[in-house]
């Protein structure tokens, strides 16, 4: 074994401490989040059936406009609109925004619902590509279709915000499947605290493996595809642990684009969704925080643990890689645009907790962890680091990872019990262990690719291929 100079050893140990220290801070954040998520779940309002929810809120809920952007959705658009029109909510307007589709999306919806061109006086506060026409039918007053030139999802949503007249709007993805009482559940915080709540997010679940009939999930099953299984554990960590905890700390920085309920007026005040970013959902939430804090207005951005929406996770490794790189890029774009909020006392807990979390988990985390995969074992192998460093590094990257994932599953089982069979739980427990050996490393690589794309100022969403839900 080579006798290394003390200064070389000191450099090696410093590198190891940076890697271990960053991982330790990340793990500590997760453990704090687990505690807060547990508290939040224990104190959450009752998860009631639709009829009780209706009895509780039915005659006091504010109207909601559902904004459903559609781009080349000719195959699924009619079923999607039908399922949106069938949602249990007393006062809802479904606004479908055809974002310059090159297929028959618009014609499908016009002919199936018997729509005709209409005039409507609408707001023009936020910018978007020109609207070509509006379509509606007196037979279905709750449906309005906007036909506009292509401008992307955020542009389509901005058109929807302008045209909507309800005080609240719900933004969804084209492939979101909403629970029939999703709106009644999500509107709760707006009813309970009408003066302060400006946005509410809900739990998104993966529909891979489930049976979908007439735009509804009728049988919950876990998928067979390993990547889809891993994503179930990831979604649990993201929603049940991180978002719920951050919401309890009032430091939530993202509401998923698949389902989010917003106060329309405040969204208009911040200029709606931003263009030129792939993280428009996170960008909107951060803009809301900034606006409300700058104006010294009391406000709350809430997250409810109730499942409100189902979405399809990619089962192909290349598609998943592109999605994750894009998410990372979106997160970094928002972080860079609003970097002055980081540790800025003016922004309180958003600056410290919300942006601190992004800095540790999204900005520094992937780079330092990947660096650690190479350097720590190498420095140990050449005798520059003792076995203690290697073990501490293994603890940070593997064993603490297992603990956090399994602890989230425990929270899920104790408080929510949404997986129907014991066998599902056993499989997910095995996946929570296995994901730390291989998947976690690949995932970090994807995030590094997102960082590279961000540094090169790459734009666009990349190709997203959908497999389609398993129909009943």
């Amino acid at each position, binding site marked *: 074994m080579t006798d290394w100079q003390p200064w070389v050893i000191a450099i090696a140990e410093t590198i190891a401490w940076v890697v*271990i220290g960053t991982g*330790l801070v990340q793990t500590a954040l997760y453990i704090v989040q687990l505690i807060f998520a547990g508290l939040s779940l*224990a*104190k*959450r*309002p*009752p*998860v*009631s*059936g639709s*009829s*009780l929810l209706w*009895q*509780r*809120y039915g*005659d*006091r809920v504010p109207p909601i406009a559902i904004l459903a952007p559609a781009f080349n959705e000719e195959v699924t658009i009619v079923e999607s609109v039908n399922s949106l029109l069938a949602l249990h909510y007393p006062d809802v307007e479904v606004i479908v925004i055809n974002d310059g589709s090159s297929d028959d999306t618009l014609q499908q919806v016009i002919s199936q619902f018997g729509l005709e061109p*209409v*005039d*409507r*006086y*609408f*707001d*023009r*506060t936020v910018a978007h590509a020109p609207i070509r026409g509006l379509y509606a039918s007196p037979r279905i007053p709750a449906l309005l279709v906007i036909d506009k030139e292509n401008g992307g999802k955020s542009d389509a949503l901005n058109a929807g915000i302008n045209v909507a*007249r309800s005080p609240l709007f719900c933004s969804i993805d084209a492939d979101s499947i909403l629970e029939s009482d999703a709106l009644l559940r999500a509107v709760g915080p707006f*009813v*309970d*605290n*009408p*003066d*302060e709540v400006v946005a509410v997010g809900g739990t998104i679940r993966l529909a891979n493996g489930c049976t979908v009939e007439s735009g509804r999930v009728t049988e919950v099953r876990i998928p067979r595809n390993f990547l889809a299984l891993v994503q179930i554990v990831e979604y649990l960590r993201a929603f049940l642990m991180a978002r719920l905890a951050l919401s309890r700390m009032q430091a939530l920085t993202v509401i998923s684009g698949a389902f989010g309920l917003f106060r329309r007026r405040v969204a208009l005040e911040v200029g709606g969704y931003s263009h030129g970013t792939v993280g428009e959902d996170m960008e909107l939430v951060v803009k809301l925080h900034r606006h409300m804090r700058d104006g010294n207005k009391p406000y709350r951005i809430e997250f409810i643990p109730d499942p409100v929406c189902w979405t399809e996770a990619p089962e192909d490794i290349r598609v998943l890689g592109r999605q994750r790189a894009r998410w990372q890029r979106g997160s970094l774009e928002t972080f860079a645009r609003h970097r002055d909020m980081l540790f800025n006392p003016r922004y309180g807990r958003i600056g410290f907790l919300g942006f601190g979390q992004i800095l540790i988990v999204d900005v520094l985390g992937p780079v330092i962890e990947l660096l650690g995969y190479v350097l720590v074992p190498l420095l140990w192998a050449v005798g520059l680091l003792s076995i*203690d*460093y290697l*073990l*501490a590094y*293994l*603890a*940070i990257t593997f*064993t*603490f990872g*297992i*603990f956090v994932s*399994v*602890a989230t*599953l*425990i929270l899920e*089982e*104790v408080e929510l019990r949404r997986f129907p*069979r*014991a066998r599902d*739980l*056993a499989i997910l*427990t095995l996946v929570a*262990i296995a994901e730390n050996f291989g998947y976690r490393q690949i995932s970090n690589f994807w995030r590094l690719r997102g960082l590279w794309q961000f540094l090169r100022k790459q734009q666009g969403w990349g190709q997203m291929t959908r497999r389609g839900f398993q129909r009943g």
Partner: protein
Amino acid sequence: MGLQGLWYTSLILSAISLAIMSWLIAARLVAERKGQRVAGERARLLALLLEPDADPQGLTNSSLSRPLLADLSVELIQLVRGEERDQMVAAAGRLGVAATIRKRLSARSPRVRVLAAESLAFFPDTESTAALERALGDRNPDVRLAAALGLAVSGRSPPARLLIERLRIGSSEQSMLIINLFQKIASDRPGEIESLITDPEMPAAVKAAAIDALAGSGDFRLVPVINQLALATDAESEHLPRYLRALGAFNHPAGAPAVRRWLNGSTWWVRAAAAEAAGRIGLEELAMPLADMLSDADWWVRFRAGEALVRLGNSGVELLAEAAEGASEPARSAARLTLAEQGIAA
């Protein structure tokens, strides 16, 4: 803690979490087996419950029966109305369902307590009433509100002022469900809610909720009171639009002074609410100011002004048609599209 400590801590935490998870999986396996029994028992109880002459002994003869029977009964009660509901409630009362639910009001979980309070609303017996009254002092605000609503729905509400104090309405309790609560109380004892509006000691949030609750009552005696309140309220108050909307809902000209005053409010939300109220009341003398509001900087104000002009009838429509032909934007678009949307030729 040294580096080794980190390693051992992570191992211990992982092992503990895996042990707990294994135990939960085992518990779930047991529950799955029990689940089949529960489903069978549920089906049996449901069939018996729907039998008018069911034997009470048969309904409660197993350890599973009582909680299941309570859940099932409440589910069924929620599904029916009128006489059928009364019969179902009476039958459930005889089977001891109310007693089972009352016990749940002292459960540790606030979720269980809220559901229990909501369910007890169906049971008018004195013990259930007393249990709901006790729940008004619960440490959880959701339970307190559910108990208050439960009592009010069935006409058993304590005095409104007591509820305001117990539920901390106007201070920590801001829920819009308070309007429902006041509405329910007002359906039996309107004077109690009316007195909240005139009481100078009441917080503005309580007055606003009381006004919202009474807005559909058609009691025109309240209009001058709300009008005065609106005139005396701060221009930027978030409650002011609620007062103005209530004046609009009463549809009575005695609300005109406040509506006229606030058409020139400094905030868009006040101007929009005043415009809406002017249209609903049919204040033709405000047609010109409303036409001027078609040029307001805020879209909501322009929209409400256009809507109000249509409601005013011919005089309003003529002004809209004039604006639709005019040169100034945004009034021209507002007028043209408002008329088009209403199917009125410009």
